[in-house]
């Protein structure tokens, strides 16, 4: 199948103030998104997953951020990074749409939800205000909001968090985009609402046939909703695999640590595993493998030399940025 969205060697850096140097938030990230699939990008706060998602539509505020030359974001054969402003606008919200983490602050408080949903249809499909309003009501019905004819005139503050995220989804999908980027779409919501929103996204993906780039820190979300996973750490992709392979054979010690940190309902009650240490500052990534200060297996080679993404033996397309792939016998904790 042909690739829909190809990201290659993406580097998004931020110039920090007071001369603290450059924060290399996204550093050489590559992945592919195929039509109709859900690709999960996981990692803890500060690993660069949100900046990656913002970079795709060039929504990183410039300055201080900038996407370095040599990066490639190719959508249906066109490099989004080389598009003029009007060309880029024609893609935004039309072919690639995005929903955000905070439905509270991501909606404009002074416009009705109907106006905000209709806006993209007016811009991209040149609908009249009246026709766009009808479409907005249809979208509200599609995302499961009761009484859409009345809710269309509501302001965001009149809706609950879960309803606002549904409005965000309606807004993103009104032009039937081919790609939906969902940046932590459920993080700000209650657990029960989270499940509803994710189910809604699954259903809509099925009905509309779009690809979803699902950004999350929650491996449970990935397990239930993603076909393939990209694990990010310190601005790098450290492992890619199908969801199944990732959970069965986590290869990178960071992935292993993340999986061990997930609480399990069927396990005996014990202290949750935690990966020791913290994500280092983006202005000063460690030399060699960026995970080595926190890795239980690290040896001299990890400090000296950063591993490339290496093909594992589990299945085709399962790669990990770890020397353990070449020296599996070292996978025995020190101590």
């Amino acid at each position, binding site marked *: 199948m042909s690739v829909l969205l190809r990201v290659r060697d993406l580097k998004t850096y931020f110039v920090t103030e007071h001369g603290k140097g450059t924060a290399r938030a996204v550093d050489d990230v590559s992945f592919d998104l195929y039509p109709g699939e859900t690709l999960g990008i996981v990692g803890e706060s500060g690993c660069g997953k949100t900046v990656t998602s913002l970079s795709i539509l060039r929504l990183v505020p410039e300055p201080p951020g900038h996407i370095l030359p040599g990066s490639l974001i190719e959508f249906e054969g066109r490099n989004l990074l080389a598009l003029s402003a009007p060309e880029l606008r024609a893609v935004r*919200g039309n072919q690639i749409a995005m929903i*955000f983490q905070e439905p509270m602050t*991501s909606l*404009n408080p002074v416009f009705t939800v109907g106006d905000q949903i209709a*806006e993209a249809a007016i*811009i991209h499909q040149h609908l009249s205000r009246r026709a766009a309003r009808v479409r907005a009501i249809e979208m509200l019905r599609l995302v499961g*909001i009761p009484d859409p004819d009345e809710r269309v005139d509501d*302001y965001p503050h009149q809706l609950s968090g*879960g309803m606002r995220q549904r409005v965000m989804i309606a807004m993103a999908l009104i032009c039937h985009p081919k790609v939906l980027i969902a940046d932590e779409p459920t993080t700000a919501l209650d657990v029960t609402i989270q499940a509803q929103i994710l189910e809604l996204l699954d259903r809509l993906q099925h009905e509309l046939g779009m690809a979803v780039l699902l950004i999350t820190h929650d491996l449970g979300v990935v397990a239930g909703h993603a076909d393939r996973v990209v694990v990010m750490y310190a601005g790098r992709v450290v492992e890619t695999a199908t969801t199944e392979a990732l959970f069965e054979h986590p290869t990178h010690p960071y992935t292993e640590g993340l999986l061990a940190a997930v609480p399990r309902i069927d396990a005996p009650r014990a202290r949750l595993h935690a990966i020791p240490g913290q994500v280092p500052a983006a202005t000063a990534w460690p030399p060699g493998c960026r995970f080595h200060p926190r890795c239980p297996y690290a040896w001299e080679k990890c400090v000296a030399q950063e591993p490339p993404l290496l093909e594992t033996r589990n299945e085709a397309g399962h790669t990990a940025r770890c020397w353990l792939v070449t020296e599996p016998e070292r996978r025995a904790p020190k101590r």
Partner: protein
Amino acid sequence: MTGGVWLLRRLVASVAIVFAVITFIFILIHLAPGKPCSENLDPRVCTLLTRQFGLDQPIAVQYWRYLVELAHGNLGMSFSLRRPVWDALVETVPFTLQLAGAALVFDFLLGLGLGIYQAARVNRLPDLVLGNATLFIYSLPTFWLAPILLLVFGEKLGWFPVGGASDPIFCPQVDSLYCVADRLWHLVLPATTLGVVGAAGTARFQRAAMLEVASQDYVRTARAKGVPERQIVLRHQLRNALLSFITRFGLAFPFLLTGAVLVETIFAWPGMGRLAFDAILTRDYPVVTASALIASTVVVAGNLLADILLGFADPRLRVHAAADADVVTA
């Protein structure tokens, strides 16, 4: 609480504030040293007049009498003008409203325009130049600016009249198009003096308000939808930045009225500010109190107007008949 109840509450509170202001001013001006009689007046005549106007009574009695008269719509007699205060106000208040109104329009049109323009070009050359220019103008004291403008544009260049509100020969009354133009021509210098400092402040304020909104999540959402940059600024950002602007609008009235006293005095503008200024010097108690009454009413009304406007502009403040029952849960 419905809109009607809210408005009624605000109106009652407004009347209470105006009442408090005139009470305060009444006591203060009577406590101030000096007497309404001029120095070269025969002391016996002064005693007679003092008794006639009831100024020999205790202040509490005078205050009570004033309130009773006020309740009957009587603002009293001016000592120095020898005519009812009401007549003097009817003559002067329109001039002050014209001056303050023109200054307000100048202030907000120019200030808003500059602020939006700067925010759209933040940290680029036009923004930096205007930012320094507005800071400079904002720092100018009106009492210095007024005579300078008068000197340059009135005296040296002769573009505008040096004082007064109209041509006394051709336009004793504004009854023709020519006289309207004449009035506007006379308005230029005083209104500019009164408005330009405020405009500089408004520009700085509006720029900051626009930039604060620019970093909000919903602006990013609009960008992600493919909204053109111009529409983002003029629709998504401006609409939100206007909310804080309305608050500033409500706060502008006290500055306009105090500024008007100075500007009217310097430009010989026959308004209420000059009337009040003269009344303070001559201890013309009824005129001073009446001026305070008018000024505080305008200030309170301005604030009320701003709150009402805000209620319309910000849906979160709009009072719904069944606001709580309206919230939908997921």
